[in-house]
């Protein structure tokens, strides 16, 4: 009885992996051609990219550091997407989370026990992200406002408010960051694994992995997770089945924001111990790509976060030979290739295409 089931799991895993693997292969060939047009040798550049990321402990530490933030923003997008919502606001939610963590760390007395301080700062980060996510959640649940528009616009508002608070009130003169926190430090990996010395990698990566496990459990093993996915697949049917759709949307946005906010502790608690303007600029948007490549599944998101973190760090390593925009292009190719093969996106495209056809035919008749 168990053999065919395992076979089924293997097949499913292979099918899930096929699209991303194909996407990476396409990206590598495109990269080869770009590097050649730039007059460099693809072999050298890729060797340098691997050497600078997975080839030594420092590079790998940097990859882990970037992975942490991307896991969080990827989970944020995926959690909302499972409920059929498009949360484009991770950028602002992430910044709000980092800011709240830094504020709490600044306000706590120096003597606060380390564990308590870290827990408080982490809760603050998730809370701030959740509040930022709740705003579009409420607007969607109560008034049916498009969460896409609201989250995009909220990014500007949140970032501008934080900019103002930091630049005009909290910044150390001549800089764009706050004072160093009093408490709430998370140790870097280099503190107990000397090979990682100097890299920004820190123990918050463990928290991110725990968050991914919790997200998986919440999505697939709880009743509210079932409701979440039911609403995402077909809201009308879910409502008919007795699910409170608006409440599910709100809950999804709150958790989505909390995951994004959690990403803020990576820089603030684990690395610099202060909030800095634009500390993870772009990571919120990259989270969308991570979730897409990871097929909105927490396990896939961890893998995709590692991939994008590797590309991002690799871009620095090869910067001497080719412009770093090369890596941006590689990322874009991966995203495009995956986007066209992922069933959810295909369904969306088909729906858009048939809508266009319908619009076309009505225009002809009128």
């Amino acid at each position, binding site marked *: 009885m168990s053999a065919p089931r395992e076979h089924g799991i293997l097949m499913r895993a292979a*099918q899930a992996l*096929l699209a991303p*693997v*194909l996407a990476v*292969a*396409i990206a*590598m*060939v495109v990269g*080869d*051609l770009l590097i*050649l047009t730039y*007059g*460099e*040798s*693809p*072999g*050298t550049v*890729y060797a340098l990219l691997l050497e*600078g990321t997975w080839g030594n402990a*420092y590079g790998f530490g*940097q990859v882990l*550091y*970037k992975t942490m933030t991307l896991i969080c923003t990827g989970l944020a997008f995926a959690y909302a997407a499972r409920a059929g919502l498009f949360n484009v606001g991770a950028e602002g939610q992430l910044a709000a989370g980092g800011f709240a963590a830094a504020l709490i760390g600044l306000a706590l007395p120096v003597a606060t026990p380390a564990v308590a301080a870290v827990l408080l700062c982490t809760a603050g980060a998730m809370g701030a992200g959740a509040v930022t996510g709740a705003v579009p959640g409420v607007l969607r649940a109560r008034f049916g406002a498009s969460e896409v528009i609201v989250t995009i616009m909220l990014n500007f508002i949140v*970032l*501008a408010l934080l*900019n*103002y608070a930091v*630049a*005009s009130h909290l*910044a*150390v*003169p*001549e*800089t*764009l960051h706050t004072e160093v926190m009093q408490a709430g430090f998370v140790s870097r990996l280099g503190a107990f694994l000397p090979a990682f010395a*100097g*890299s*920004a990698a820190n123990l918050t990566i463990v928290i991110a992995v725990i968050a991914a496990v919790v997200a998986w459990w919440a999505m697939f093993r709880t009743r509210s997770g079932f409701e979440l996915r039911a609403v995402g697949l077909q809201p009308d049917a879910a409502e008919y089945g007795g699910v409170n759709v608006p409440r599910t949307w709100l809950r999804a946005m709150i958790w989505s924001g909390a995951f994004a906010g959690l990403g803020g502790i990576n*820089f603030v608690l684990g*690395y*610099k111990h202060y909030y*800095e*303007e*634009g*500390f*993870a*600029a*772009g*990571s919120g948007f990259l989270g969308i790509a991570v979730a897409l490549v990871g097929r909105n599944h927490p396990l896939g998101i961890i893998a995709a976060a590692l991939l994008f973190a590797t590309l*991002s*760090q690799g*871009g*620095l*390593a090869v*910067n*001497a*030979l080719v*412009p*770093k925009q090369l890596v941006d292009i590689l990322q874009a190719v991966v995203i495009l290739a995956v986007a066209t093969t992922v069933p959810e996106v295909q369904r969306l495209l088909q729906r858009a295409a048939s809508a266009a056809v319908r619009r076309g035919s009505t225009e002809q008749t009128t």
Partner: protein
Amino acid sequence: MRRTLYLLGALVAAHLLLLTITPSGATIAPEGEGLDIGIVFDVGGRGDKSFNDGAYLGGLLAADSLSARVRYIEPGEGSDREAGLRLLAAEGMDLVLAVGFIFTDDVLTLAKDYPDVKFAGVDYALSFDDAGNPLPLPDNLVALKFREEEGSFLVGAMAALVGESKKVGFIGGMDIGLIHKFEAGYRAGVMHVCPDCEVLVQYAGVTPEAFKNPGKGKELALSQYNQGVNVIYHASGSTGLGVFEAARTTGKLAIGVDADQYAEAPGHVLTSMVKGIDAAVFDAARAVQDGTFQGGVRVFGLAERGVGYVYDDNNRALIPDSVRTRLQALEEDIIAGRIRVPSTR
């Protein structure tokens, strides 16, 4: 499924094939004698027509006349700054340059981690102890700082003398201490030659976006020109492109910043307050070459020719000789310490 697998196989084969190609001009690992210099740019990177490009120019100069090998890194997000510096330092570069105040913490950490590598921080923000004295820097770190207020003082005086109006304008980018330095020097310069003049001061915003908002720059500039201002000095990054646009449409004058910005609006750029980042970078490289490199703070003001204003064939017609003579006298007074230019408002 099978078709996809074939496709995958074909792609991997193509990739492996392409990996073996080495074009004739490909970079080979640097070797031989000569200085190795690494430069990490501010987020934003090359092409800003301002200080990143200034540092790039300094690097080119070092490559030309010191036959140095120069490598550049453009960081993306926050953690890339330290990573970029570390990448270069770990390769055993002779000199690693960090461009921009935002590198302050990173370059200090690195200087401590790599005592054998020399570091330089452009616009490095000094920390002060409780008594208000700057904290000493490591021996292998030099902070390259500029007295932007001195250059701004001279263009302020020029704006008041040439403007033929009791009102002169200033447009800043982001409302922060760094830009207040420009404003304070400019205001002092205006007041020095025209005590009853009024300086209209406006900032484009409180976020870093304020440095790249030409629309806002144009709007602010037009309103100042309409109030009777004839000359506007901007210290606002690419927001200033809007100021030049406004100068062109109203036929009035604007003053550029950091680099010679005459080309942005020929005939309407009175002058530019230039900051000699290229020279500072080149000096640091030469000091390493000669073995005269010293850690600490190096300040570039008028006396060191680190700041100044543009006076050449392009704008000579706009500046009367009497004004030029007056400015030269002011410059001597500042260098001799007879005029003290404020750096805060």
